[in-house]
């Protein structure tokens, strides 16, 4: 890749001050935090090589990095500003995390309208990547639940953006990867709950046909997601567990979640995750669900955020880090594409713990550059292995393109410019909304546009 990637195996240099979740690539950048809504653009006046607002660094690749530039962590802007218990509309600064929003909302009988698989993302980050969750069928993506937000540009102009006010800026900023300006505050429409509990069901399936049958049978269930074993071939090919959940309708506990205690304190050695250990993990996971069909009531934490219980789990992938491959292929080719790609992954032997399979619904995203589209979505992690991971990812990217799908910028460290521009042909329209001061290593990589003020 780029010549200035810090290779952790060959240097003893201190790790960069800000890393993405995949810890690949590693780029050095200057950090200037934004603690107040009035900080930007004043606090970065005169910086060289551009700037980029960032949240908690939970996107995987380089969409939250700017090599040699200035990153502006927004997590100090974490104030709650207003809450209307009648409408459930919360107004908060953009650097607040979903975890903090839940701490506030759950005791009051409210929940996030859409949540990704980690609660350690900021509101600004959730908008910038237009994140989605297990209820995409019914709810669409995160931006569908944002009545408005404030966008500040490097020229000092401030805009309140909504579907009707500054609508083009609203659309460009949702899924806009932080490039259109700094989001200072956000309104979010929360939903009612009466309990922390989730009515959960888990059902085994064997193969994509069974997965699609289950999806049709349970299309009225709010939350659905599947785990799929992509290490296995033969009779176990594409076996998995279809997981369903609904917020319990039985009034129950509405307390805050205690702080997590487990953390991976250091990097695992590179060999810790290999084909054997991953296959073992997948088998254990599959057979933990011993029965064909399990029904239980569980807390929302393990249902939505199973991995948040272990802080820094990404260190399990060692110093070289990991990346994720995540596609959405429209229904036309969804089944054949998914089978072909799963075969290619199984053949590679580079498979990973987490392969998540899900059907996206028909609710259109409001963002110009949003990832979700109706069809099948697959996401899985790959450890970075020199000479192996990137050739595979390029093949998988090309296959995704052939089947009419697209990849998710927030999870990417490998898309080629040709792939990106085919996945997002509207990229040049979007480029007109980019703030001239702001850029990211991702944007430079996939568009070749290196310009900053």
């Amino acid at each position, binding site marked *: 890749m780029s010549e200035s990637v810090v290779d952790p195996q060959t240097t003893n240099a201190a790790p960069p*001050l800000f890393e993405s979740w995949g810890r690949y690539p590693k780029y050095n950048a200057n*950090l*200037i*935090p934004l*603690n*107040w*809504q*009035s900080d930007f653009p004043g606090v970065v006046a005169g910086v060289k090589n551009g700037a980029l607002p960032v949240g908690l660094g939970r996107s995987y690749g380089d969409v939250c990095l700017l090599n040699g530039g200035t990153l502006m962590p927004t997590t*100090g802007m974490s*104030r*709650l*500003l*207003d*809450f209307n218990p009648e409408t459930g509309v919360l107004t908060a*600064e953009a650097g607040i995390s979903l975890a903090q929003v839940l701490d*506030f909302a759950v005791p009051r009988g409210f929940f996030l309208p859409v949540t990704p698989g980690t609660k350690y993302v900021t509101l600004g980050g959730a908008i910038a990547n237009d994140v989605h969750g297990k209820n995409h069928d019914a709810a669409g993506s995160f931006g569908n639940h944002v009545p408005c937000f404030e966008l500040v540009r490097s020229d000092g102009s401030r805009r309140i953006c909504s579907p009707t006010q500054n609508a083009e800026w609203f659309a460009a900023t949702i899924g806009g990867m932080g490039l259109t300006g700094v989001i200072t505050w956000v309104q979010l429409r929360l939903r009612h709950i009466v309990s922390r509990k989730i009515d959960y069901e888990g059902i085994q399936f064997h193969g994509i046909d069974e997965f699609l049958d289950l999806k049709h049978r349970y299309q009225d269930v709010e939350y659905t997601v599947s785990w799929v074993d992509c290490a296995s071939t033969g009779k176990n090919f594409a076996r998995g567990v279809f997981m369903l959940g609904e917020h319990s309708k039985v009034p129950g506990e509405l307390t805050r979640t205690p702080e997590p205690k487990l953390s991976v304190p250091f990097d695992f050695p590179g060999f810790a995750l290999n084909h054997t250990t991953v296959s073992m993990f997948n088998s254990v996971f599959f057979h933990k669900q011993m029965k064909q069909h399990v029904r239980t009531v569980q807390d929302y934490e393990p249902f939505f955020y199973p991995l948040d219980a272990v802080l820094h789990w990404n260190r399990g992938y060692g110093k070289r880090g990991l990346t994720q491959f995540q596609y959405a292929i429209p229904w036309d080719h969804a089944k054949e594409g998914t089978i072909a790609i799963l075969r290619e992954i199984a053949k590679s032997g580079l498979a990973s713990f987490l392969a998540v399979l899900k059907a996206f619904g028909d609710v259109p995203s409001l963002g110009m550059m949003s990832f979700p589209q109706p069809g099948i979505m697959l996401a899985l992690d790959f450890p970075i292995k020199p000479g192996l991971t990137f050739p595979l990812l390029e093949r998988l990217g090309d296959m995704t393109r052939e089947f009419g799908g697209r990849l998710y910028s927030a999870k990417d460290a490998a898309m080629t410019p040709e792939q990106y521009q085919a996945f997002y042909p509207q990229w040049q329209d979007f480029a007109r909304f980019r703030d001239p001061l702001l850029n990211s290593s991702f944007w430079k990589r996939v568009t070749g546009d290196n310009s900053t003020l």
Partner: protein
Amino acid sequence: MSTQATQAAEIAINSNGNTAKKILVLGATSGIAEATCRIWAAEGAQLFLVARNANKLAAVAADLKLRGASYVGTAVADLDDTNIHPELLAHAVNSLTGMDIAYVALGVLGDQVKAEQDFEQAAQIIYTNFMAPVSLLTWLANYCVQRHAGVLAVISSVAGDRGRKSNYLYGSSKAGLTAFLAGLRNRVDREGVTVMTIKPGPVQTSMTAGMKGAEKFANVNKVAAAIAKGIDKRVDVLYVPAIWRIIMLVVRHIPERIFKKLNL
């Protein structure tokens, strides 16, 4: 009869005090102060916040109200203007209908390099970090002595324990404050008033943003939790994180003939 009435009033104050502490916060938009206030807000405290910047203060106040504070009053004021202190403090205490804790958190780091050449800069640091708190605490201590109750929790710094070339103006202003607090404690403790000297080590806040090694500084929420706990326990001198008590013990005992040659 009158004893019973007094007891009833005390119980009312106590039960009120236990569930809703009345806290005056001076310098409420400082990173450590805001983080501490979030803990108190979650306990349902009544807060009166004073800060210089109206927009920042409004955001902090809205946040603390939503996080559970049972009352949030505010006043925008430049506390360098000591003439306004008596009226401002009387108004604050009146708004809170009493005061259990005064949390004095104003302070500036200042520009050490500039202050080495420019007395105006040096005087500014000393004024904000020492003179203004002395003025505030003089009024507040006398208010508390009259009532034989109250906690005056004041943020000084480990930097005040020994002057170092990298920040001796900030350090000397905090050294003066630490000495003032020790003397004040000696005077008012016997009147039932607690004076607490809080000495944070380097903490990740906007004050220290961009400083070398800032990523290793203490987490502001942990520091705030230690301060809130220290106030509950009426600690006299609190080092946060606690390791700084030992570090500064060592630093204070390095002989001057060696110390003067170190780059600290």
